[in-house]
């Protein structure tokens, strides 16, 4: 177990990336570490038909064309904007892309309401400025500026959370590909000293939450400089199961937990989410549906909670009872409304099913009932 809680993708898959780089003989754009086809292979995993000596696991689950379009965008001179509902894997895809292309996925700016232009461009080390005056040494480059200097991929998370003036600072970076530092004097001999030029290979991957639309809308000038790739919510049960399994395994590895997730329980979890989504779609008002977005990420959260609970407080096996209690515990956020929905769900859907199908369902029903009783 490494001493890092969550290693970035390039560290986690370092060995795989090295191997891919060693066998990659296709032309690579700019300073890319892998060719576009290898990047795709790294993200979507290998198949027998690819004829590789070792298997590359699939790391992101979704339509192949999204990945291809994203890679191609980065090879062109436009930025990439991944847009989608929360929990659809946008940030994960962005991390994988930058890890594969430039072996550095940590050049990240997190967009918030408090993000300023300094976070995107540069700021000053005040004590050094007092001691030595303004110079390249006393300047603190932003992650984006570092990416420009090294020809790497810079990432901007939650672009639409930051205010419009901050967003617009990206326009010149994306079109001119340089940042000028007016505080530094150009002494004529070293003409480029007050301008930081981007090296080939630099690009930006931004993510935006489609639920935030309208909060800080992108200006059309910025929109032009990004190619939009919309990542849809996973509705295919098969691929959702794969995602949940993949992420849970990773999680168990990280926590060094030796625990089996029985496939039947995974089915129970997927089915219950599918049911709750269906009921949310049919609900007439906000009071009739859960506050949670019921995304795949939430599903993983529920499973993680159940796994941790059974590992530390249970009998080291995951049971349907624990799963139900985690489901209710993590998704019931509003006291009367959400609990009422769960009560309705357990009695209206789970009870008949447990009588009909048996399996893990009766235990799941008991667990859910107990938790509701405790919470209310």
């Amino acid at each position: 177990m490494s001493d890092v809680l969550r290693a970035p993708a390039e560290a986690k898959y370092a060995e795989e990336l090295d191997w891919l780089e060693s066998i990659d003989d296709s032309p690579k754009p700019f300073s890319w570490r892998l060719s576009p086809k290898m990047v795709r292979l790294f993200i979507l995993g290998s198949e027998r038909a690819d004829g590789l000596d070792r298997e590359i696991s699939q790391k992101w689950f979704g339509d192949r064309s999204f990945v291809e379009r994203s890679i191609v965008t980065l090879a062109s001179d436009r930025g990439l904007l991944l847009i989608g509902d929360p929990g659809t894997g946008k940030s994960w895809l962005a991390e994988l892309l930058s890890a594969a292309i430039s072996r550095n996925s940590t050049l990240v700016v997190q967009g918030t309401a408090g993000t300023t232009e300094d976070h995107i461009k540069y700021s000053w080390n005040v004590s050094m400025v007092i001691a030595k005056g303004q110079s390249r040494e006393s300047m603190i480059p932003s992650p984006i500026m570092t990416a420009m200097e090294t020809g790497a991929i810079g990432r901007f998370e939650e672009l639409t959370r930051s205010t419009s003036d901050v967003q617009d600072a990206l326009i010149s970076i994306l079109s001119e590909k340089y940042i000028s530092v007016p505080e530094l004097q150009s002494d004529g001999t070293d003409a480029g000293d007050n301008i930081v030029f981007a090296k080939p290979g630099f690009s930006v991957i931004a993510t935006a939450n489609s639920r935030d639309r309208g909060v800080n809308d992108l200006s059309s000038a910025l929109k032009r400089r990004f190619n939009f790739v919309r990542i849809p919510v996973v509705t295919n049960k098969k691929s959702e199961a794969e995602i949940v399994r993949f992420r849970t395994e990773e999680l168990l590895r990280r926590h060094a937990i030796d625990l089996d997730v029985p496939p039947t329980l995974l089915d129970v979890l997927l089915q219950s989410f599918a049911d709750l989504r269906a009921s949310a779609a049919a609900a007439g008002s906000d009071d009739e549906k859960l506050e949670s977005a019921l995304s795949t990420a939430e599903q993983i959260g529920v499973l993680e909670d159940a796994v941790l609970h059974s590992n530390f407080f249970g009998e080291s096996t995951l049971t349907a009872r624990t799963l139900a209690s985690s489901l209710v515990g993590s998704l019931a956020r509003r006291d009367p409304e959400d609990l009422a929905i769960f009560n309705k769900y357990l009695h209206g859907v789970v009870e008949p099913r447990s009588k009909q199908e048996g399996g893990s369902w009766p235990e799941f029903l008991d667990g859910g009932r107990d938790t509701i009783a405790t919470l209310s």
Partner: protein
Amino acid sequence: MSGSSTNGPGENGPGEASFTALRGQLHEAATAFADGPDALEGILLGMVDDVDRAVREPLEIFPVCHHSPASALAMARRLREKQPKVVYLELCEDMAPLLGELRNCRLPVAVQAFASDIDGFPAEWAPLSVVAPVTEASAEYQAIAYALDTPGVELVLVDRSSDHVFQWDGRHGERTPQEASGPAAGSAEPEAALHGEAVGVEIGDLRPRFAELEEHLLRHGKVRHWSEWWHQYVEVPLGDSDHAAYRQVMFLIGSLFRRLAPGDGDRVRVDEDRERYMWTRIREHLASSGADPEDCLYVCGAFHAASRVEEFGVAGSGSYLISPRSATTWQHGLIPSSHAAIEAQFGLASGSVSIAATQWAKNLKRTRVQPFRLAGQDGARKPRASKRAAPAVPAAPEEAAADRLSGFLRRPPVLDTLDEAELLGWSVDIVRAARRSGYLASTADAIAVFETSILLAGMRDRAKPTPYDFQDAAITCIEKDAVPGRRDVRRLVEIMMGGDRIGRVGYDALPPLARDVHDRLAPLELRLQQRGVQRALLDMHSRPELGACSDVLWMLRRLMPHGAARPIMGERKLGERSIQESWDLALGTHQRALIELGYEGVSIEQVLEQRLRRDAYGPRATTAVVLASVEDATLYLRSRRLADELGHRALEVLAAERTVDGAPEVLRRVRGLLAYYRTGEPVLPPWVESFVKAGYAHYCTLLPTAFTDEDVTAGQVAAMLGFLFSMESLALSLGCDRAQLELAVAQSRPTDPERTALLWAAQVQLGALSRAELRERCGELLANPMVVPAYPRYLSGFVHALVPVPGLADVVVEAVSNAFARLPDPVLLPWLPTLITTLRAGAADLAPLLVREAGRIFPARLAALDTWVPPWHEVPEPDASAAGRAEAADGGCRGAALLFAHPGTLDVVAGLLGCDGTWAAPDADAAGPALSARHPDTATAWESLLTSS
């Protein structure tokens, strides 16, 4: 299994040799890759056997795939080379007579077989409809055009008939036609629904019938859908290959799908039956016509070319017996089709047929192959050179069986060279199109699209971006977070790549009814064949001949789906005639509906008459429905004969009816018809008289039960009473007896307040209850606290009672006013919505009546309201002046009494006119003729005038 062939060794010498090498290789591959060699080897070598067998068949089999430009191109080439004398085509054999009409249409159109009167199938399947769409870029069109326009060439359709499509469908009882029909009906695009509910048949359906196999092929081919896979792995590599290679590859693919994934058992059985059917028909034709199989060409889907049924081949066994058709009568016609409709019907990716059409046009230009076109084809460009000018290249039969597969299979994927100019053109065009639909796209985007397309194609191992790569690139670069207009970039690319093309059936190919409609609407001087809505203005006052057009339009409105003919101004009601009308017409858009109307008869009058009769004699016909038919027959057909016939039918239905559900509708219709006949005819038609008589007796009989039956609403009872009271005078004159009605009312003992109020109203009308008594009852109800909560329901009953007894309006106004004045709010307020809805439902009849009455009773101005006393609160006291007036009128001279009472007025008038007469005392004895005695001149003048003439 290797080396074993179904044919004898004598006739397959060269073929045996030619495929031996390939067999050997496959045998090695099978042992190398599979643990147990049997299954894999069986499949691989079986495929070679299939190809071998099909290639060696003396009757040349030409395998095709639908919407494949490569097939069409290979077909055009082969036809020019071989010049066959007979072409056998996999298409329903009963559709043959229609193919010649294709030249009058703009493709794509669909050949349709249609049956509404069905015999031998479950009744709920009706109407049955089969469509076979034909596009210009298809191999079958090439074959049809060649065969029909080349003298001495015979075209024989050999597939099962439309009737068998349904016979075989139903035989296994699992798929109903509804399931088999395309998903077109629910599609968002209107063009996609052009085929309606029809079952589609298509030549050369070639697609894995096994979801996993298709998924596998798509995943490994790195493509998104089947059309793209086909385009990349078959269409492009086959583009320029010669005939032998084309044939062998198509046989191989057909065999591959057949052996790997035959699909569900029922479907395979139907397919094999079709193959038996086709070969049986071919052999029959060969025997009867004596044609040499060498001179013939059999065009069928590649799937069927790899058939292993015993009947396969000219030398196959002839044991198959074709089942007879059912007794259903089939009608045939051409209906317009569209690329979107074909895609929706056969589950193809959106835009794929359009891309195929574009590819076909490009292939033609590139290879300079002269395609076949039916002479005079509508919408086609004139062929530049005569078809005869194409040199007939003799075929080289000895090469046909040579192995062309090994080379094809070993060759790396053929990479089409990059056509930079074409891609540039696309990039510029899409940006222009995007700008037109509201996107903020610029030249920079065109550059980005161009670059991204090439990068994407490179990533997908293609040297040249396919239209699908280009589509992805355009979406990546232009589509942002929201779609500004009606169409997104994906759709724009589809439109740019050829877009949807909608076919049109030409005038000459239309059924007689549709031609007749167009002829009769010709005076409107509109191009009604075109799609889209057109406005027609009819001024019958200045151009009386347009009256006939108006008749046609009203009938079309009655018969065709909503929107085909929509009146904007003008209406047609009993007894009314418009002078001017304006219409929105969309006959071109609804061409299919018009053509299907043509299957029902030869003129719209005939179809309408049939439909009216069908409605009236149908098992669910009610009196109201039949009366509606009578009205329609009078309105649209002006046919007294039909109206009388249907009227008698209404009488029969009424006599058999045991419910009063339709009473309000019956009342409305009968009142309308009665008013129409009374004003327009010297005597009432006999059926109307009988109907009134029968209705009077019928409703009298049902009245007591209706008053107590819980399922009958107050509105229905009111309508019954309305019928009885308003038809009463006519019914009595025809010999009905009023005692019957009085008895019926006396027998009625309703319990619920609404109907009780109705009964009271009826009693008032019949004279059994006076108005004073009715008022008194209402007063009692209001005074009794136990009944007050039910009072509003009495009021509802009174409001309904205005239908049969409109004279009761003043009592109703009084009752409602009292309710507002005296009812406590908790009782009054919940009832108000009921009052409003009741009034609204009968708005046309009830509201004006009540408002007029209320206007008469209530003061007109606000100021007067303070001193106003409702008339029903006034104490009726003997009026002295009125009594005096009555006395004077009785005693004095009738009429002139006022003059004597007030002589001043007349004196002043006389003074003004300059007369100075004196008042004469009224002469009590002389009445009337006093004046003629005083002035006899006038009378004598009159007399002489009258006697002299």
